[in-house]
């Protein structure tokens, strides 16, 4: 078994881990770093539940190897709230009841945050295309879209 030593930053904190060369970044986050926010829905890049930001890009962490994370900056849902204060996207997802089982939610949150960083005022179509790789089996998406737009409006005011 070939183990790889990796140093990276997760939500601003330096982390080091040893992982099997075949292990995905998702497995590393969940099983070695105890960051269980990112979920495994499919393991094959189709559902987006494992979404994280990797060196500034939204990616599916099930399609990245842990070994590839050497020197990387990784942002996960765990880094979104500021202490007890929820991120506006998290707050609005709750207010709009835009989740049921919640399995898709961490991925939706991190994907929406990446979208708003690029486009602070996305229209519905832009949100739907951006989130095409984030599947939700529960909500039917409408509430998610409205929550993101509401959060975006709040964030524009604060900015």
């Amino acid at each position, binding site marked *: 078994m070939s183990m790889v030593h990796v140093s990276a930053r997760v939500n601003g904190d330096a982390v080091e881990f040893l992982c099997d060369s075949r292990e995905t970044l998702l497995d590393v986050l969940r099983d070695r770093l105890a960051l269980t926010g990112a979920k495994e829905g499919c393991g094959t890049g189709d559902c987006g539940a494992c979404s994280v930001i990797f060196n500034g890009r939204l990616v*599916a962490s099930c399609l990245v190897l842990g070994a590839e994370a050497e020197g990387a900056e990784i942002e996960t849902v765990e880094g979104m709230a500021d202490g007890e204060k929820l991120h506006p996207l998290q707050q609005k997802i709750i207010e709009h009841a835009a989740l049921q089982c919640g399995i898709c939610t961490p991925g939706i949150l991190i994907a929406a945050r990446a979208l708003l960083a690029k486009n602070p005022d996305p229209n519905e179509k832009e949100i739907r295309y951006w989130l095409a790789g984030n599947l939700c089996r529960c909500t039917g998406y409408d509430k998610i879209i409205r929550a993101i737009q509401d959060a975006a409006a709040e964030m524009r005011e604060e900015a």
Partner: protein
Amino acid sequence: MQYLKPASFEEAVAMAGEAHGDVRFLAGGTDLLVRMRMGRVPDVLIDLKHIPGARDIVCEGGGWRIGVAVPGAELTEHAGLRADWPGVVEAIGLIGSTQVQGRATPVGNLMNASPAADSVPALIAAGAEVEVLGPKGARRVAVGDIPTGPGQTSLAQGEVISALYLPPRGAHGGDAYQRFIPRTEMDIAVVGCAVSLSRDGDVITEARVALGAMAPTALMVEEAAAALEGTTLGGEALAALGEAASAAGEPIDDKRGTAKFRRHVAGVLARRVALVAYERAGGAK
């Protein structure tokens, strides 16, 4: 599985030469990690992303050199590439989700060798080439000569693609790509079509037409290009183009569509895509 990070393409070739068993090169990994998940784990994985230049987009002699590790998201944000080769960029942008775009690369799309790969017809129509490096040195190969069948390429064991080259666009040129899928996002082309052409005034002086998912590999369709050249893309030229596209290849019946449907869609797409490329060549954005 051994995970290796060469510092040059020469080193990558040497590593592949010394390795035993199944050797794979890693760029974005969006196809490779799915294969691994299905149990097809290579013995040696050679990650190309840390080789200097592999993440760069460089304007070179009026054309573009694109590193093998540049993901779709970066390509679709690149203003210079979008201005020169909007069809290539839109084809790359259609691959997978936002998350997949964050990793997936056009050379990976090419080496995965799916007959339905979106970027491949667009790259063929654009006249793109790749540099192939192996134990015997480097050679330039037209993109269309890389895939030889579903999942098969013309690269020999131990050879690696070191860069993708788009030629200079030249004045009054335009390209476009569209595909048919039964939904609006995140699906595999039933048929894809790319057209690249140059104009002198209203007259098409040069055209290249390529189709995806109409044969075991993406196809360049000479008859379709001939139907465009010398015309101003009037009704007759469009009809001839559509017929040539419909007649091309050897489409199959599968769960995504029948051969008959594919032939029909190829004609429809060719006409639509040619109109977009023609407008772009005339200066439309």
